[in-house]
């Protein structure tokens, strides 16, 4: 039995396309009110995983449970409970946001009235405009509104901010955070690392169909093999070889006019560095401390750089 408090429980999910294992024995659980991020480079299997979880694709094996209900056994009940924003979805050119919300709502027993959704997603002014006249941000807000039409307890958001400008992205981030405040669970897939770090309570990094690492952003960073970097600028360029011999310094390298020091603990090294500079009559001009980031973790695990948010 799965714990009743899990909004979504995916267990040993496998999906193959020919010889390619797009989703390879993936398991995770999302708690109520939790925003769970699936982070991975393009082709990592994020969309396949979401589509299997939504019942749009038939997995080869494994199980998906939404609020304890087996998705394969009762797909219609699952559809009544979840909302989704999928990639590459558009509506008919001539449909209006109001009509779309009323149409989709008509399939559910207790839909949220269209006007409330139009207000919530700032679409009242465009309620009766044709879909083809909406901007990219308005279309994405409408997609999100459609995902809310059945008042879902679990939302699947498959790269919802992809291709949007920063302003619109920030608006959608607020809307996603509001989901958490309302007690809804969210499965968010993204390849924007900063977006995942800013929004998600927990993140799973997906690489070649498998979960390479999972945890809170802090846990993932803490588990990173990357080191803290100290970027040092002095009046007289210091000798990297001398700095490398300081206690606690793992490596030192010249980077432009500065020297970069790698260390596990920055505090003691800073004290040693200050002493060294005083001993050599040098003056410290600038010191930057750079902790390992989620991007470092992402690159370590996938070998790919995430896209800047």
């Amino acid at each position, binding site marked *: 039995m799965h714990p009743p408090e899990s909004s979504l429980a995916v267990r040993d999910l496998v999906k193959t396309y020919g010889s390619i294992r797009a989703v390879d024995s993936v398991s995770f659980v999302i708690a109520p009110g939790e925003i769970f991020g699936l982070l991975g480079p393009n082709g990592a299997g994020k969309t396949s995983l979401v589509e299997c979880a939504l019942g749009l694709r038939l997995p080869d094996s494994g199980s998906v449970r939404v609020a304890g209900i087996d998705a394969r056994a009762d797909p219609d009940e699952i559809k009544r409970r979840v909302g989704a924003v*999928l990639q590459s*979805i558009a509506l008919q050119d001539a449909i209006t946001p109001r009509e779309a919300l009323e*149409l989709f709502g008509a*399939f559910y027993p207790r839909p949220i009235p269209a006007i409330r959704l139009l207000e919530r997603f700032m679409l009242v002014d465009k309620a009766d405009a044709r879909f083809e006249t909406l901007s990219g941000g308005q279309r994405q807000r409408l997609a999100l509104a459609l995902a809310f039409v059945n008042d879902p307890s679990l939302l699947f958001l498959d790269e919802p901010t992809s291709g949007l400008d920063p302003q619109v992205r920030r608006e959608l981030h607020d809307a996603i955070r509001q989901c958490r405040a309302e007690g809804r669970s969210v499965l968010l897939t993204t390849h924007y690392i900063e977006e995942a770090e800013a929004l998600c309570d927990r993140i799973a990094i997906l690489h070649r169909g498998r979960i390479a690492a999972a945890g809170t952003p802090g846990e993932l960073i803490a588990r990173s093999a990357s080191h803290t970097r100290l970027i040092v600028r002095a009046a007289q360029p210091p000798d990297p070889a001398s700095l490398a011999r300081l206690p606690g310094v793992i490596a030192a390298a010249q980077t432009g006019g500065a020297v970069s020091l790698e260390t596990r603990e920055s505090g003691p090294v800073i004290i040693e560095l200050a002493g060294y500079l005083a001993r050599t009559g040098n003056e410290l001009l600038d010191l930057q401390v750079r902790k390992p980031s989620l991007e470092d973790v992402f690159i370590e695990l996938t070998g790919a750089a995430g896209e800047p948010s």
Partner: protein
Amino acid sequence: MNGILHHLLLTLRLNFRARQALVYGYLVPIFFLLAFGSVFHSSVPPLLHEMGQLVTITILGGACFGMPTGMVSERERGVWRRYRLLPASTAGLIVSAMVARYIIILLAVLMQFGLAWCLYRTPFPAHPLGELVAFSAVCFAFLGMGLIIAMLAGAVPAVQALGQAIFLPMIMIGGVGVPLRTLPPWVQHLAGFLPGRYAVEALDACYLPGGPGLEDSKFALAALLVIGIAACIAGSRMFRWDSGQKLPRGAIPWIVFALAAWAAVGLVAERTGRLAVPIDAQPRPPVAAIARQSPTAIASAKRWQDVTPAETAAITFDDLPRDDGTIAPVSRSLDDLPAASKTRVAGIRHLLDNWPPARQGDVVQRVRNLLCAAGVFDVLEDPDEGAVGYVILDTIRRQVPGEDLEKVLTYIIETPAGGTVLTSVPGLGIQGQITEEAARERSVMYATKLLKRVLGK
């Protein structure tokens, strides 16, 4: 259920907002109506015998182009992928799309009936309820085929290609565009394996004045239902929500299954002798209409010799079509004919001299045969129809002395349903067949034109 109904109504609303859908759904049917009205003028009023074909073309267009274009376009945009997340059955959404298209086509057909009446005084269906039943059966069969096209087509251009693959054979050899009666016998049999033939048959039976109605169309209706059921099953089993989704592995067997229904229907029709188009099967009702126009009862037992000068004088020529028009044309002379036509018409004149129907002992039947021959050239729209009319009228004048000719022509005009008529004249070098009703109608027209000449009016 509420969702499906909402989807149906919204599909209709969106259809009427889309300019392209309006052009294809309503302007094209008007174009076909006008084209048929100008090309097929063999009936009085025009289009009487072409409405079944016209309605079938409208249904074919809506079902095999309109619906699949809409569905594939929405699938390409991801609309159906989004619908898939709804707690709705596939069958429900398919039925909704089909019913919406049924209503769209129904409105187009009603518009055609209304326009045909306004423009040509073509009557409305003689059996309205029967016509609605026949229309529904035709829609069901063709919408099923449209569903298969929508599933096979990966993109909108492919809909056009697949639609044409169904549309063109039915137009050309299926009795939908070219009337079945004018096609060679082997094509008439081949048409039995295409749904279009049964569509026209069922629609005509309920449309034509005095037509038999649904009673005589049971086989055609059953054929359409069998074809429709097979197509709907195949189409729904091949259903694709997503443009990226491949056709299911079983697609080809399902296509074979749908086509097998066509073959089964054709074989049953062939085995039960339903595929021949005997003269008896041609529409008869307008014969009665012609009789009503005549001042004398058809059943007159009078001989032609008893026709009085007063009866001849009572015949009016006001409503005759113009000699240089398209109905019952008669050339003013043969002088201006192109050389090739001159040679051909001379050959026909020569054939007429030894043509057995023109050597009948009964002078009335002989004249009627010759008049029918002119009618066949006219209705089949032979390029030399006017010149042949000229030669035939001349032949009749040469064969029958003046006073007798007046009486014979008056007799033929007064008894349009009398004797027998020729509906084809292959002996004069023209292939194809016209209806008995058209033959009688044209023979009366040509008789009247000749009488006018004989009387010097």
